[in-house]
């Protein structure tokens, strides 16, 4: 059976304010989905709620992984079940070396039933694999000895996210604006990297404003989000259209959702940071 991540009629509020108003989306392993939409339309909230962010309240709907409703699972359990999110703004963990963090994470994800305190992947084995993956991503080995995202440039953070993706090899990966903050060459490298590390085996949801990240990861489906709903779904041509023409036409085609968008942005300015 083809593995699927299925989102049905998902309603989500953050601090009492509705952000998602009935999202439906099904991703199968091996598919690439692009998710586009204006700022504040709910893309990052959708990513966060799939990963299990604790401050998002789901009032209605389900998220199913191969038929299991995962809404009650915490982020750790979801990660161990094969879900991954590349953060738009990864968190710095000062004093914790990338290599130590990754060894712990990789061990847990590969042995989902591991109990705290049980053995980690043998150091030698882990180092070898990490070195290979870093070489593949053209990353300096020194990177592994740096503290997680601490003092990283925007580009370094995004590359660190891709390294994590490469090590954890999830079934489903959500890339939340992995291209933002990167220059053209860096986006190209990122795009190639994702394809190289076996993106084809994963179900991928790419949240982006640009089409460059899609270059090597051509979407099978493009979704447009507006006012907390997916209002249109098309092929790769839709992504190109949105990239070149913006969202005005989408708003015209979906006046009701555009009205919701307007309302959300007028009441939600102060929340913007929280839901971005």
């Amino acid at each position, binding site marked *: 059976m083809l593995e699927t991540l299925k989102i049905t009629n998902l309603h989500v509020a953050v601090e009492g304010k509705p952000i998602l108003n009935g999202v439906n989306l099904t991703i199968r392993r091996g598919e690439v989905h692009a998710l586009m939409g204006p700022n504040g339309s709910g893309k990052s909230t959708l990513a966060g709620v799939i990963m299990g962010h*604790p401050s998002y309240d789901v009032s209605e709907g389900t998220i199913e992984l191969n038929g299991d409703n995962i809404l009650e699972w*915490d982020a*750790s359990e979801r990660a161990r079940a094969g879900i991954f*999110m590349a953060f738009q703004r990864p*968190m710095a963990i*000062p004093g914790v070396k990338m290599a130590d963090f990754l060894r712990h*994470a990789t061990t*847990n994800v590969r042995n989902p039933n591991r109990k705290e305190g049980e053995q980690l992947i043998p150091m030698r084995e882990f180092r070898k694999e990490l070195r290979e993956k870093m070489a593949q991503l053209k990353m300096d080995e020194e990177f592994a000895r740096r503290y997680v995202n601490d003092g990283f440039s925007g580009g370094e953070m995004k590359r660190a996210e891709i390294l994590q993706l490469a090590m*954890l090899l999830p079934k489903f990966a959500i890339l939340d604006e992995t291209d933002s903050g990167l220059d053209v060459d860096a986006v190209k490298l990122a795009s190639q990297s994702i394809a190289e590390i076996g993106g084809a085996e994963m179900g991928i949801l790419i949240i982006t404003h640009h089409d460059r990240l899609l270059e090597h990861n051509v979407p099978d489906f493009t979704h447009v989000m507006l006012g907390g709903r997916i209002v249109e779904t098309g092929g790769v041509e839709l992504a190109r259209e949105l990239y070149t023409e913006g969202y005005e036409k989408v708003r015209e085609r979906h006046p009701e959702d555009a009205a919701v968008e307007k309302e959300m942005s007028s009441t939600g300015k102060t929340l913007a940071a929280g839901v971005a």
Partner: protein
Amino acid sequence: MATDLIASDETGIGEINKYDFVTPSHAVFKARRGLNSQIVAEISEMKGEPRWMRDFRLNSLKLFESRPLPRWGGDIALDFQDIYYYLKPTDHQGKTWDDVPAEIKETFDKLGIPEAEKKFLAGVKAQFESEVVYGSLKEDLAKKGVIFTDTDTAVREHGDLVREYLGTIIPPGDNKFAALNSAVWSGGSFIYVPKGVKIEFPLQAYFRINAERMGQFERTLIIVDEGAEVHYVEGCTAPMYSTESLHSAVVEVVVRRGARCRYTTIQNWANNIYNLVTKRAVAYGDSLMEWIDGNLGSRLTMKYPAVYMMEPGARGEILSIAFASKGQHQDAGAKVVHCAPHTKSRIISKSISKNGGRSSYRGLCKVQDGAIGSKSNVVCDALILDPASRSDTYPYIEVEEQDVHVEHEASVSRIGEEQLFYLQSRGLTEAEASSMIVSGFIEPLVKELPMEYAVEMNRLIELQMEGSVG
């Protein structure tokens, strides 16, 4: 300091005491509960001390009685008359691990301290007397003139040296608890490193665990002579255990010209201990004094290791970690006093508060008039794990000289939901994620420790973190 002409004749001490103080042979001695001059005199008598030390104690007792409790720091709810100030070991010989609070016993078990060390702790006296672990080392060093012994023995065998320095760095009247220690002290380390002798491996003191023997009032004196080097470690691989309610040590360190001394402490106290300790070093020309101070457990800890930089080129570094959990208040910090030109100091303090624990950084940076070209850098970071916990910073900066460079940075952070979410999204449990954030927070200090102590410190922190996430 009280003087005694007879006692200054070192060769005479033993003889005189043998006649002066007749102790019942092999009798159990337990000072009566409470504190008065008679009890202090009895302690001195029990130890067969020279007269000068007895007078030192009695004089200190008067100072203790006249001093008020500190009006700052934490609440000290102690009845000084309800404490046993001296207990001879035989009182506790029948003790088993079953007498130990379950929490502490469990900690030792979880620490995986080898069976041999467990035996060591159970039979502290024997181990203390034989000093097998350090026997060979001591022998090597002894040939070079190094002295490493307990302070009681030092009073008997190196009376002149002890008498010259004891109570000069921290006079009995310095504060109420220094006075108390001076009156009732027992045990502690005495170290003398002769000129130019560099001791490669750390000197380690395990006998401090023998609270019964030494009481809770250890007295340590370290003299590092010109160009010599020593690293002294206490209470590290065996967290200290004490059933008593008060631990009040005094540690004095003299670092002569061009010498180096590193003093590492990792304390893991039971939750019913008041840990009120005075630690001070004087550092002479071009010398370096380092305090590395890890404070875990206790009900209240008040401890501010100090370095007085007495001559040009002296340096003082203090690294401090405090971990306050439920029912614990860590009022810890550091003091640096620049008394001479071109002296340099650095303080790094890291504190963690969880489960309603309270940690405070309290520090003094003082630059005296004339200490031109001196530099001081103070960084204190606090990490708060939950809303019930608390952290405060009390930096005191007194600069009497213009031509100096003094920096102070302080930060307080909470373990953020976003940090936890990030780590959990990579498959770490909430507990693993918190633990990782905490170990990262103290990493800059832990990496300063020798490997085995760094491992120990991390394990202690992990133990503190266990079950901390609700």
